[in-house]
């Protein structure tokens, strides 16, 4: 379970996140929505350690993760994807997955340099698991393609798989449907649910596609001007007058 408590982040005068409180229970899909510039991605950046909030706390399974480095937070079980696909384009599909595995950095530099037996075994296991993860999104046949050569929709899926490689308990998806065609969006719906169930994790997602959000979320938080405007089940949010006002009056 992930808890965000009274989190505030300022950039000089600007308050990007103002006293945000959120709770992401185990095995749930939670959405974070709001007009452009509401501070959603900033909130992701705080949780994943890119920014350190000025105030408040972020707690993952009873452990405060605030102020920890991004690589540390990843290893503690929070993985993310990006709004704009952020793959290692010149590496193969499977290398992109292997690179994000915990084990991949366990054997140290010297094991790696001299190719010890322990290292070779770890590596074999890593590639096998990466292959299994790719089967999840049906990318196994393209394992040795260069990541940058995949169509955009598949790049997004690969980014999700890469995020799964670290065995996270929380998966942060930043606009997973952006740039996907309608068929890919439809499939994404099923893929996210499948991931949540099979990998036994929770999803926190920022998304503008309301059909997707209302269709799969268990709970929705609405952010506006850096502040929480409302939260509730998808039905409650769709009825909420403040939310309707923010969306109609906003620039979205």
């Amino acid at each position, binding site marked *: 379970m992930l808890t965000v408590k009274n989190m505030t982040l300022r950039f000089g005068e600007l308050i990007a996140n103002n006293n945000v409180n959120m709770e992401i229970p185990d095995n749930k899909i939670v959405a974070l929505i709001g007009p452009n510039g509401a501070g959603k991605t900033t909130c992701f950046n705080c949780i994943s350690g890119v920014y350190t909030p000025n105030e408040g706390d972020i707690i993952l399974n009873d452990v405060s993760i605030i102020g920890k480095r991004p690589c540390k937070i990843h290893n503690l079980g929070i993985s993310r994807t990006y709004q704009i696909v952020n793959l290692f384009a010149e590496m193969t599909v499977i290398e992109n997955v292997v690179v994000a595995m915990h084990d991949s950095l366990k054997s140290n530099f010297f094991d790696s340099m001299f190719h010890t037996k322990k290292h070779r075994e770890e*590596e074999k296991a890593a590639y096998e698991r990466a292959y299994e993860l790719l089967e999840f999104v049906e990318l196994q046949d393209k394992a040795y393609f260069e990541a940058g050569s995949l169509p955009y929709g598949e790049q997004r899926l690969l980014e999700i798989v890469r995020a799964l490689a670290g065995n996270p308990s929380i998966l942060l998806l930043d606009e997973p449907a952006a740039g996907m065609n309608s068929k890919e969006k439809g499939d994404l719906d099923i893929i996210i649910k499948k991931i949540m169930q099979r990998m036994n994790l929770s999803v926190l997602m920022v998304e503008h596609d309301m059909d997707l959000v209302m269709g799969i979320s268990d709970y929705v938080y609405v952010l506006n001007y850096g502040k929480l405007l409302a939260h509730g089940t998808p039905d409650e949010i769709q009825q909420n007058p403040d939310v309707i006002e923010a969306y109609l009056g906003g620039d979205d």
Partner: protein
Amino acid sequence: MVIQLLVAALLTGSIYGLIALGYSLIYRASGIMNLAQGDLMCLGGFMGYTFYNILGLPIFGAMLCTMVSMFLIGCVLERIVVRPIFNRNVSSSALILATVAVSYIVQSLELVIWGGAPLNMKSFLKVQTITFLGVSYQTESLLCIGVALLCMLTLHIFMKKSSFGIAMRAAAMDPIAARSCGINVDQTNRITWAISTSVAGLAGILVGPLYGITTTLGTAMSTKGFASAVVGGYGDMYGALLGGGVLAALETFAAGYLSSSLKQLVAYVAVLIVLFIKPRGLLNVEAVKD
């Protein structure tokens, strides 16, 4: 004569290539050119001299000790010079200036420790030449080429196959994404500096019998290595090696067939031509994308 020239070109080329490799690796990792690369190479030469001539280690032992020492020096350099400046988010020119400072400091230290007179490395092998198919070769050159190629091959396998190597490439390609994949980018950067320094050190030993070791050699070799890296495609590991080979071949053949006073002219006119035709270098991936 062609074959002898080819061997000479390969020898010089592998030395240029090793220096260029350091430039490119560091550029990918830290986004700057490390102008201390040539002087670090020299430092490697002096260390090699110490291990081989003074302490009397066998040649491969001396090479290994030099590479390990230089690896550690690279770590320290990254930790106490590069990292503190890099973390302040200053412009890259400040960081480049820091590497210039390092290069002069290294030079001065060499002068203090080993003195200003050129040092001559003992020859690496007892047998000076071998004859094969009617052509005689200098065994030392062949040994140096072999060692350089072995080093490049090891590095290639390390970068392509090992998970640490993959992590290093990932960190160089996109540090932000790499961090969110759990890669300790500070650590991969440090190892990158260490490897570059270590490889430059190896080049320093190999240069020993060729030119002798002096404190002033660094500056000249620094330029050659930089030119090789840019011609090959700045930031590309294989481009660096190719660039080293091309530059060395131009120099060697111009010296052999025309005159040694013309070798720089020919080589650097050719460098300019490459820059006109392929401004991003022979092997730069970004050039394909643009």
